[in-house]
């Protein structure tokens, strides 16, 4: 009776692999053993009888591609567009950053300025002012109230003291 062990031994024998001699003897002595080997041979012939081939154009394209230069060309053909796109993107990025200061200049750094007049009336240390510089004061005469403070202003008509007579003045004081 042919068992799977016998079939396996005959399969190994058919494939040229090592088989224990005792097992091979036993397997070959089974009824149908020779027919089984013949079926293996036919099966092998049927499986390998496939004469289909890849297309000749396919083979030529593969040969061109697999030649060292061909493979390099193939890689270059794939990599160059990617590299060009990447470099264009980086260039555009760099140009954008490079042109930015020209297109949009930053504000000038703050310069400490002395506000005229602030030092005389302000507390100690309040001479520097970071506010944008105001328009310089006109060089004209100081304002009227300042002239008054320093005694330069002409008395207003309402402030004028009219001296008619010194006696009258003296009596009015008492």
């Amino acid at each position, binding site marked *: 009776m042919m068992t799977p062990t016998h079939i396996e031994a005959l399969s190994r024998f058919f494939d040229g692999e090592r088989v224990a001699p005792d097992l091979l003897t036993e397997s070959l002595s089974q009824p149908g053993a020779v*027919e089984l080997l013949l079926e293996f041979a*036919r099966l*092998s012939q*049927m499986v390998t*009888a*496939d004469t289909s081939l*890849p297309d000749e154009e396919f083979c030529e394209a*593969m040969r061109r591609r697999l030649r060292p230069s061909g*493979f390099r060309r193939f890689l270059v053909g794939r990599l160059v567009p990617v590299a060009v796109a990447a470099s264009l993107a980086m260039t555009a990025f760099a140009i954008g950053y490079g042109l930015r200061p020209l297109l949009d200049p930053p504000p000038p750094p703050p310069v400490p300025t002395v506000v005229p007049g602030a030092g005389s009336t302000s507390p100690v240390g309040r001479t520097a002012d970071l506010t944008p510089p105001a328009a310089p004061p006109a060089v004209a005469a100081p304002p009227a109230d300042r002239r008054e403070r320093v005694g330069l202003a002409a008395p207003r008509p309402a402030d004028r003291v009219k001296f008619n007579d010194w006696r009258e003045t003296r009596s009015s004081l008492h």
Partner: protein
Amino acid sequence: MNDTAETLFERYHVAAYRYFRRVTGRHDAAQDLTQELFLRVVRALKAYAATGRDAEWVFRIARNLAVDHRRRATTRAEADWADAASARVEATQVVAFGVSEALALLGEPEREALLLRELVGLTYDELSRVCQVGPDVVSRRLQRARTRMRQLLTTRLRGEDGQDSRQDG
């Protein structure tokens, strides 16, 4: 190793194409997988230099490609191809199978062992390394594959229909 990718292509592209054609059942898919195989060979060629067993190495990559292909075969044409073969068995119980149909009915481990053995000529040791199983497992897979193929191809294997030499895609 002094072999270039082009040399390996000349040596193995026909066997690889026929292996893939048996696995997928389709000419265009077989060509696509053959192309992918040799592009991977080119990329891995330097790493291979120390091993020296080119057929085993090339067909290990081929086998992995075939396994990946089977896993992601979403085009139902190929699955239908195997299903149609199954239906044909159940419906008619005839034995006039084509080799491709019979192969499609094998389990994947049995089919890959049989194809790599018959089409490529790998030894059991090489098959065990390619399929990452022990040589005894390879031996049993081949025995099961041949037993199943005998059942499916009985008439033709016994030479009763006189079509042994018929070309079968």
